[in-house]
């Protein structure tokens, strides 16, 4: 055995060095990540009245369910006063909907969400904060909201006949937006494969998003929970293009 260890000394040294380095990095990142979570929790709780956090009725499932429905309807009535299209994300029924003036114009079924249980156990105060009408503060997408095709007016009929209408590339939608109540939402379109069957790549997508996050920020300083939602691509694009920039969003769980 001793002979073996001596013979492959460099192999063992390399193995344990990598192990220690990876362990140290992971522990450091874990500690920092949890520190960021604690900061975010304290910040959130400092904004919520204690009476709401400790609402007794919330502990009764029947009362809780009714209160959730009441808040959802109240938010709808408030949004109905606005002239702009807004987004409703109903996690309880796995539905994303576009509404205007209180009329639901479009509904899409959530095919998958991650985390599977997003904010399903909150105290009353934080539930109210989660479901209040939020505004999109920052958004990015891989396609344009208004897919404008610029063309120069032709000078005569010959030139007009030569104008080509190039098609705009149409990748599967990835729409990321941050809300002013400190929630990030990522909506991903699901395409069809060559047999016209939904091409599900949830794990691949999640890995890609998580890797992107680590690349962007090696250590988390400000924690914002992220809700990942997958919709059929056509539905996702219709919703993305319907909701105006800085649009309003309301949740139900």
């Amino acid at each position, binding site marked *: 055995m001793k002979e073996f260890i001596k013979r*492959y000394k460099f*192999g063992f040294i390399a*193995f344990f060095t*990598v192990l220690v380095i*990876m362990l140290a*990095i*992971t522990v450091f990142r*874990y500690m920092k*990540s949890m520190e*960021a979570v*604690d900061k*975010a*929790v304290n910040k*959130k*709780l400092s904004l919520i009245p*204690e009476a709401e*956090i*400790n*609402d*007794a*009725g*919330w*502990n*009764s499932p*029947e*009362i809780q369910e*009714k*209160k959730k*429905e*009441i808040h959802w*309807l109240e938010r709808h*009535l408030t949004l109905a006063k606005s002239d*702009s*299209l807004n987004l409703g994300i109903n996690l309880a029924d796995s539905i994303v909907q*576009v509404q*205007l*003036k*209180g*009329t639901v*114009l*479009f509904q899409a079924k959530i095919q998958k969400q991650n*985390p599977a249980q997003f*904010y399903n156990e*909150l105290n009353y105060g*934080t539930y109210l904060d989660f479901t209040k009408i939020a505004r999109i503060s920052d958004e990015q997408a891989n396609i344009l909201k208004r897919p*404008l*095709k610029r*063309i*120069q*007016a*032709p000078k*005569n*009929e010959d*030139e007009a006949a030569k104008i080509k209408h190039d098609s705009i590339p149409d990748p599967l939608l990835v729409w990321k937006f941050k809300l002013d109540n400190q929630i990030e939402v990522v909506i991903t379109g699901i395409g069809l494969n060559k047999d016209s069957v939904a091409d599900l790549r949830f794990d691949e997508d999640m*890995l890609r998003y998580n890797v992107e996050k*680590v690349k962007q920020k090696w250590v988390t300083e400000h*924690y914002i*929970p992220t809700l990942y939602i997958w919709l059929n691509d056509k539905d996702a*694009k219709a919703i993305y293009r*319907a909701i105006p920039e800085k649009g309003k969003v309301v949740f139900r769980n």
Partner: protein
Amino acid sequence: MEKVKTILIWILFVAAIAAIIVLFAYVNVNTIPEKQFARYQAELSKTANTDTTSLNRENEIKALNKKLDALNKRTQRLTPGNAFLIINTTNNTFELYKNNQIIRQGRCSTGSFIHLEVDSTKSFTFETPKGVMTVQNKVTNPVWTKPDWAFIEEGLPVPPPGHSSRREPNVLGDYALKLGDGYMIHGTLYQRLIGSPVTHGCVRLLDDDLEAVYTTLPVGSKVFIY
């Protein structure tokens, strides 16, 4: 033989190191975010009051039910009770509602999103406006009054307003529903293009769909466009 054994052992070392790297990378990339969210949610679910004995449950449920009924009634009143039309400009589809039921749905054509630049001061964007509009007027056998852009995009000189070359009958189908600001729901000669974003901002329908929409929607009906 001894050489092969040595090589295999070194391959094993490299594989073990690679496995360690992959394992920790997975923990960093996937497990830590999961743990973060679990902790965040757990902290936000904490409440100091788990005692429900002081609660008059029945009375509270009664009050909540009353509130819920009132809210449901108010919410239902928001959706137009009579006929209305919903246009999806991304998928180029429509849904016609009457008494809160879909009575017809199908394809339509909406704005092409072409931005026609004439010069540095003049341009046109062929986009169907989003929001809620109202049927202001209904016309049979509509005649199209060609706007400036219809001449500009064909490379033709723009005639003065009211010029006879601006009037073009038989191109808008049998009916038109005017929505204001020059926007209309009408028919088309190019039926095979229905379902594609090809219009200058109006909504085009197939002949049968247009007739159904025309007969169902009275003046004053809402048209929701998103």
